């Protein structure tokens, strides 16, 4: 009997496992790109090199890029620590490497190979395919943060090149082709080793290396020849006034640094032993007296560009001050670069979108001077970097290309006629927040808004329908007119040869042009993803194709800037929009598209970098047109929260944004919005990461002298004393379908569904587990579940010998998180499920939930967690894991269930529980992004769609990815491969067959009667 039972349970187990495995829905191969899209990016360009034909020496270098530039590449290193090759003509990424999580110190082309220096490692790459040639560790000793610099010395006479790579401690000279170490030298960087900085510059004889120890304020100069690692000259220079080498620029024989007052100090690298200030008389000669904001080296030969708020100066700064600066004054925002003998000067007016002209001139008669005007959409902001390259055309004439980076991090390429070659939307690699917006519906039912009289509703309906009719007409006309263009779009494959396909924001003012094709589909699967980037740019992505529908730079609030004095005005050029502290830039959808005659409205909360004051800006999320001006708030904000319901009273249907200032003043945005009927109070909380403090507030509506006023009181305070790693709360709009869970014995476990729960993970030193013999001491992670209305800790648990990265997700009545187990050296995934208790109450008279917990081994490192969201919450949930290896794995929540038993009983089987297994099952079929690896995932957003089975998943980071997730398979729609023809044929066949047999039977019966 027992054996039979075991056998039965085993069979059952196999069956269940099979069922579960089967429920992991994988894509079909022919579905690649059908419901998903990927847009790979590199990030904001920090270093850029143009590919040159192999074997050219410096002499030929001015005549680079022989022939066409079809196979030419440009190499970039970016703020995402990405090293990539981009086609100069196609703008496609040819190859791309994600380097270590440390800034790239520099890239250089030397002897036909590409060199990169980052994290103390010198790497040489083949330019064509991006294969590593060799890798050299510059210094053996490990440092928490490596400084580094890279230089290439090319001798025009004997073709002997050297690559110099240095950290703050050691310099190596390497033969570029073989990677053989020619010589090495130690640089004694001073005492504060871990923070020392280094910079270097090649000179005709060799190399100059400057190290700087900011703690001691000491700078050391080393001049090396090419032959040996014995320094020709070393000198120690005191520079206590200097904060960082980033405020310096180095050239062949001069080091120019900015002191805190904004004046220039010069150091001669060949003979000087101390910094010398620029004499005031010479400063006057330069036209501007400063204070200078930045100093840059341009094109060798001791040429520096000094930039102040009012303009810029290009000057030959000779540290001996013998010749005196021969300078040239430039208007503000100008950029000057030298490439060989060709001089490129870019002038721009205004804050972007204004006239940008580029002048190329040369002393040599070979190059004809020309001046081109370049067109930029206003949403790019100013041009911040200019990378020109010259080449010889087939006919022998000179030509050039320019690649530019604008303030929003986008990359642009122009040819020498001023025609745009391509643009890469690298700003989208810096997305910080995402909101999905439903597209306007073409459904008439939503035209009439409730609450009006019969006649007004009728009039509204009529006008609405006329509106729709006009929209449809416009749409048809657009389709008719723009057919060839739209075909070109689909071929463009995100390469964006031109800016034309997506309407620029300036053009978007002609309302319908961008939004014409944007009409909600049958199942509301097609949405608009409104994103905000860390550079203060807003954009909307079409969820079906990934195309940018509109882009918009958040404008600086102008009124306030004018009110402040001229001093503030001069600082305005440097002021920009940036995310709030903590890197957030929340987006609020204040009015949805459901109120048709009224336009939808979204608001972004960011801050002004110069004053740190919060800035609010409203816009139409469908068209990308700003609503009013950006508003600068006068006080700092503690919290901003959307009121849960829109107000129907004033016919505006706006959900007001409640702003709680640090003086506990409550204001509404927009200011005159009515509060929804019956609004009494609102609870909110703040997370103070610096002070490790959580605080709760209650906002109340009080009536004083017939005037409604909002007031805030602090209700609770919770000091956690430990650094807060991550927090997670339930999505306010989440739908829970079933409030209980039926057990095998027909009892019901009721879910503990508290909508105000906040999950917090904190890190502390582990006092319990003894420290290991080697390595760092253990830490511990504590997970807290806090009721944000009362401030009560509902549940908490500590994981000893654990550390981050912690990823947390909270949905319905459960919590899933990942952490690193230091002792067992593995990642683990833990789940909590909360069920309503048996009426037990704690001292605060609140019911305590029963918490079930279980942990599993996660065989692959994870960088982010998310959970699928569906419209009604009927569909099973899937936990989405962004793996470090680049996959997004969909894991059925049934695998993460604290009730998974160790011993199976029929009751558990009936409930559909799987027996406990310590490892989370990994399957390649569960990877929703198949081989489109996504590295450096910053966030995952799931959005419910009109189909209950389907949830939209948007992943952002260096790459963008969007797909549909169906945790319980597509149960509400026929499968894509449903064989309509076969079913139709069978049905028709059956019908015909029945008719025929009927006739035959009748005939036979007749014959039988006759016979």
């Amino acid at each position, binding site marked *: 009997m027992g054996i039979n039972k075991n056998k039965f349970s085993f069979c059952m187990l196999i069956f269940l496992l099979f069922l579960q495995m089967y429920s992991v829905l994988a894509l079909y191969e022919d579905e690649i790109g059908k419901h998903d899209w990927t847009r790979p990016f590199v990030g904001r360009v920090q270093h850029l090199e143009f590919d040159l034909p192999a074997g050219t020496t410096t002499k030929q270098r001015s005549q680079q890029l022989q022939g066409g530039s079809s196979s030419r590449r440009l190499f970039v290193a970016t703020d995402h620590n990405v090293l990539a090759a981009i086609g100069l003509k196609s703008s496609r990424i040819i190859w791309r490497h994600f380097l*270590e999580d440390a800034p790239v110190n520099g890239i250089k082309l030397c002897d036909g190979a590409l060199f990169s220096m980052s994290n103390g490692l010198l790497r040489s790459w083949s330019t064509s395919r991006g*294969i590593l*040639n060799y890798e050299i560790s510059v210094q053996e*000793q490990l440092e928490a943060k490596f400084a580094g610099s890279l230089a290439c010395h090319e001798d025009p006479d004997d073709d002997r090149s050297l690559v110099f790579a240095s950290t703050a401690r050691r310099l190596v000279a390497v033969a570029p082709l073989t990677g053989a170490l020619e010589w090495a030298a130690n640089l004694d960087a001073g005492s504060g080793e871990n923070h020392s900085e280094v910079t270097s510059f090649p000179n005709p004889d060799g190399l100059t290396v400057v190290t700087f120890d900011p703690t001691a304020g000491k700078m050391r100069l080393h001049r090396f020849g090419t032959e040996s690692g014995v320094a020709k000259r070393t000198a120690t220079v005191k520079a206590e006034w200097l904060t960082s080498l980033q405020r310096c620029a180095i050239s062949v024989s001069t080091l120019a640094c900015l002191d805190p007052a904004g004046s220039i100090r010069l150091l001669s690298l060949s003979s000087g032993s101390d910094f010398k200030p620029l004499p005031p008389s010479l400063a006057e000669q330069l036209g501007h007296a400063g204070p200078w904001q930045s100093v840059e080296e341009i094109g060798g030969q001791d040429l520096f560009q000094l930039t102040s708020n009012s303009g810029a100066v290009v000057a030959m700064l000779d540290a001996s001050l013998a010749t005196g600066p021969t300078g040239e004054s430039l208007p503000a925002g100008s950029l000057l670069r030298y490439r060989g003998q060709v001089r490129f000067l870019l002038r721009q007016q205004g804050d972007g979108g204004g006239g940008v002209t580029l002048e190329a001139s040369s002393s040599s008669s070979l190059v004809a001077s020309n001046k081109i005007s370049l067109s930029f959409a206003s949403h790019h902001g100013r041009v911040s970097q200019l990378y020109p390259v010259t080449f010889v055309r087939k006919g022998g004439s000179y030509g050039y290309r320019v690649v530019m980076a604008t303030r929003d991090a986008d990359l642009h390429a122009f040819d020498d006629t001023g025609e745009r070659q391509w643009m890469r939307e690298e700003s989208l690699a810096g997305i910080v927040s995402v909101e999905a917006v439903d597209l306007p519906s073409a459904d008439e039912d939503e035209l009439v808004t409730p609450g009006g009289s019969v006649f007004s509703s009728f009039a509204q309906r009529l006008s609405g329908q006329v509106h729709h009719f006009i929209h449809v007409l416009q749409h048809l006309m657009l389709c008719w007119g723009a057919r060839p263009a739209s075909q070109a779009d689909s071929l463009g494959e995100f390469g964006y040869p031109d800016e034309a396909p997506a309407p620029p924001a300036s053009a978007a003012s002609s309302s319908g042009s961008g939004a014409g094709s944007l009409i909600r589909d049958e199942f509301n699967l097609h949405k608009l993803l409104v994103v905000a980037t860390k550079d203060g740019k807003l954009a909307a992505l079409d969820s079906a194709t990934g195309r940018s529908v509109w882009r918009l730079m958040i404008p600086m609030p102008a009124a306030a800037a004018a009110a402040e004095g001229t001093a503030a005005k001069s600082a305005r050029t440097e002021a920009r929009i940036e995310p709030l502290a903590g890197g957030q830039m929340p987006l609020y959808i204040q009015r949805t598209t459901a109120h048709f005659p009224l336009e939808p409205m979204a608001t972004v909360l960011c801050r002004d970098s110069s004053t740190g004051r919060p800035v609010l800006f409203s816009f139409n999320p469908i068209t990308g047109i700003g609503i009013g001006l950006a508003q600068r708030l006068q006080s700092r904000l503690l919290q901003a929260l959307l009121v849960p319901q829109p107000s129907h009273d004033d016919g505006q249907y706006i959900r007001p944004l409640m702003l709680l200032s640090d003086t506990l003043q409550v204001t509404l945005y927009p200011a005159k919005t009515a509060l929804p009927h019956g609004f009494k109070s609102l609870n909110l909380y703040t997370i103070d990461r610096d002070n490790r403090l959580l605080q709760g507030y209650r906002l109340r509506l009080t009536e004083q002298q017939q005037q409604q006023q909002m007031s805030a009181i602090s209700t609770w305070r919770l000091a956690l004393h430990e650094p807060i790693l991550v927090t997670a709360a339930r999505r306010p709009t989440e739908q829970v379908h079933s409030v209980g869970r039926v057990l095998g014995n027909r009892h019901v476990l009721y879910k503990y569904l508290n909508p105000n729960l906040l999950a917090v993970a904190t890190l502390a030193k582990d006092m319990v587990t003894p420290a290991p013999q080697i390595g760092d001491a253990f830490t511990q992670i504590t997970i807290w579940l806090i009721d944000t209305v009362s401030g009560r800790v509902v549940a908490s648990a500590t994981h000893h010998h654990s550390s981050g990265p912690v990823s947390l997700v909270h949905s319905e009545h459960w919590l899933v998180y990942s952490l690193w187990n230091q002792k067992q050296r593995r990642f683990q995934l833990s789940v909590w499920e909360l069920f309503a208790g048996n009426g037990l109450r704690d001292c605060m008279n609140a019911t305590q939930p029963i918490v079930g917990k279980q942990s599993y081994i996660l065989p692959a490192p994870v960088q982010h967690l998310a959970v699928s969201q569906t419209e009604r919450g009927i569909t099973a949930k899937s936990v989405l894991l962004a793996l470090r290896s680049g996959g997004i794995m969909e894991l059925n929540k049934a695998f993460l269930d604290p009730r998974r038993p160790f011993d199976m009983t029929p009751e558990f089987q009936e409930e559909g529980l799987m027996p406990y297994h310590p490892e989370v099952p990994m399957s*390649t079929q569960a*990877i929703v992004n198949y081989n489109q690896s996504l590295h450096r995932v910053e966030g995952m957003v799931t959005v419910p769609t009109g189909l209950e089975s389907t949830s939209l998943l948007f992943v952002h980071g260096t790459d963008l990815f969007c797909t549909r997730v169906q945790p319980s398979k597509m149960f509400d729609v026929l499968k894509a491969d449903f064989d309509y023809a076969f079913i139709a044929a069978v049905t028709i066949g059956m019908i015909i067959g029945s008719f025929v047999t009927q006739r035959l039977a009748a005939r036979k019966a007749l014959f039988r009667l006759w016979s």
Partner: protein
Amino acid sequence: SEMTSKCISLKALTALAAFACLLPVSRGHTIEGVIEQPMDADADFLAKTRITVDSGNYLGFIRANRTFIVQHVPSGSFVVEAIHPNYLFEPMRVDVASSGKIRARKLNFLQPALVKKLTYPLRFVSLGRAAYFQQREQLRTLDLLMNPSVLIMVVPMLILLVMPKLMNTQDPEVRKEMQQQMNFFSNKQNMPDVAETLSNWFGGGGSSGSRRSGSALKDAKRPGVKKRAA
């Protein structure tokens, strides 16, 4: 005041820990290895493969001779993985001693202490292409026919329909031959009688209605009847 003192002590502790971290001069070690290029790999295989140590904190890139090194690795025990979007490789655990001695062993998350040594320098061999996609089910007539349930249904039907047709020939020669065969069979007493079994199945305990229904059944019984007569 207790709170603040706690805070201060914690801060001091972390500062101490940070200081203790800095004190020893830690040298980086180098993990070496080679990767086997799968036969069907494309030209980009080397550039698209990367070696990650300690979930990507230390990286290695593949050189043209398929070897790789991961430098600046501190002492400790790390998981080394080879990652390629299209191929799967088995991850390994590599223990780096502070002396610089390195050993590789099989990665076992369930029993982390279990040592099953692997060769060092590391050698990654592809386990095959990653199966990201489901096979689409196609409706094939042969598949439909070979389905066991269909076979169970169809084969007896065929026997019922076809066999009598074959035997019920009016040709006297065939009939004679058949009778001979039947006699041959009837001589073997212990042979199970197919026709009888069938008649038992269908007619034996059946109602009169079933006997009347369909000429095929009657046909099926006929040989049996004849045999009995013989």
